[in-house]
């Protein structure tokens, strides 16, 4: 069971907002789903078998990059070739 406060903490951790008035119904649905997940507690402990494929690698060769235009084209804001972002608190 998680409380509304727990849900707020998770939303904070995920940096995702919950709209006004949405906290209570969201918490209810969340708990219903988590309750369903409880069945995993009954899974007998076991090892996960090793993966068949290993060591998937490529050679150290240079390939063309995207053009500068392609890189910044979808960016809402750019300046002198840099991409603009909201300020990070120092």
């Amino acid at each position, binding site marked *: 069971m998680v409380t509304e406060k727990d849900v707020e903490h998770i939303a904070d951790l995920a940096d995702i*907002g919950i709209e006004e008035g949405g906290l209570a119904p*969201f918490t209810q649905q969340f708990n*219903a789903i988590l309750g*369903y997940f409880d069945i*995993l507690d009954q899974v007998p402990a076991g090892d996960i078998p090793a993966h068949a494929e290993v060591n998937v690698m*490529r050679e150290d060769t240079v390939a063309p990059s995207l053009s500068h235009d392609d890189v910044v084209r979808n*960016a809402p804001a750019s300046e002198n070739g840099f991409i*603009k972002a909201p300020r*990070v*608190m120092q």
Partner: protein
Amino acid sequence: MTGTLTFEPDDPINAFLTTCRKAEYNNGPLSGIPVAVKDNISTKGIETTCASKILKGYVPPYDAHVVSLLRAAGAAVAGKTNMDEFGMGTTTENSAFGPTLNPRDTGRVPGGSSGGSAAAVASGMVKMALGTDTGGSIRCPAAFCGIVGLKPTYGRVSRYGLIAYANSLEQIGPMAQSVTDITKLFSVIAGHDPRDSTSCDRPFSHAPSADIKGLKIGIPDEYFGKGVDPAVAGIVRKAIAKLEELGATTVPCTLPSMQYALAAYYVTCTSEASSNLARFDGVRYGPAADAKKSWHDAYRDVRRQGFGPEVRRRIMLGTFALSSGYYGKYYAKAQVARANVRADFLRVLSDVDVIAGPTMPTIAFKLGEKSDPLSMYLSDILTVPANLAGIPAISVPCGISEGMPVGLQIMGRHFEDERVIDVAYAYEQAVKA
């Protein structure tokens, strides 16, 4: 033969988010054939949104590998189809741009998340479409719309360019009216891609065979148990009986791991999704972050405004499942459960050649019918095991219930997509006759 296709269909069912009105095509096995592409598959120069506001206006500067293959095969990319936002849903009602309607009954959902692709094919707008299947998202809409849909063996089709929802579960796959068309499209897209480290070197070039004499088909109790509509179960049993007429034998079996398959699926996919979707911050693409705000505030706003409620719910679930203190209880446990499901299916598939059952527990819901998230998740119970195990699974139409299509699901061993396709083909040809 090269040329330009004019593609301007009437689309009252909202199957397409973008149509390529003048679509170029080249020589090749699919020359001149319009193929619809689900809107979570990157198409260079064509807006790709995953049916989400957070990607509105995003135009990829590169093609997904499968799109390059389509173009090289001469196909014309007809347009981008509607879907549940980021693949999260079973009805295409979670699209930020309105749901797609089921062509068979426009008061019902087409299934999801590849609802747009399924509806486009079922309504005849296109002959073939690409969908993606993370927990049933090709097979469910194929069943609900009455067409054929294949989820290939994991790794058989490159995921490079597929906007990730759950990397360890999803595959791009073909959707069409006939098994033959499925194989045409599959043979173009299957094969190794060095840019996808999880892709395997297993190209596909198989002409379907209707000969299934001596085939052993496993019939799991869990696929016909409570939660499955009796009418749907009955129709599927009749279809299986048809297969027996064609020379196959059925063997009852049980898959006890099914009891935690759905939980394992939802913990895994939401965990991976919570990480995959964190990159949408309005800085490099998508609707702009508010530069007047500080980073975290701006980021939070972009996500609250850009993601629909189901996407936000799954991100939260996944964040929780991976968080410190809960990782062992949820994510780690889910991986063990998943390994058990895989082992369970392999055990059964060492006694039988394929497993058969209904694709979905019911016929297509009415629009707006399923509003409770958990009850929506529960309808994936028959499809998620194939994703967890990585095995191939196909849905082929096998009858009508209450006026709506019912799908027969065939699952097989890893890399035996050919055999799974053959069974579907055998059934399809038998009922045509």
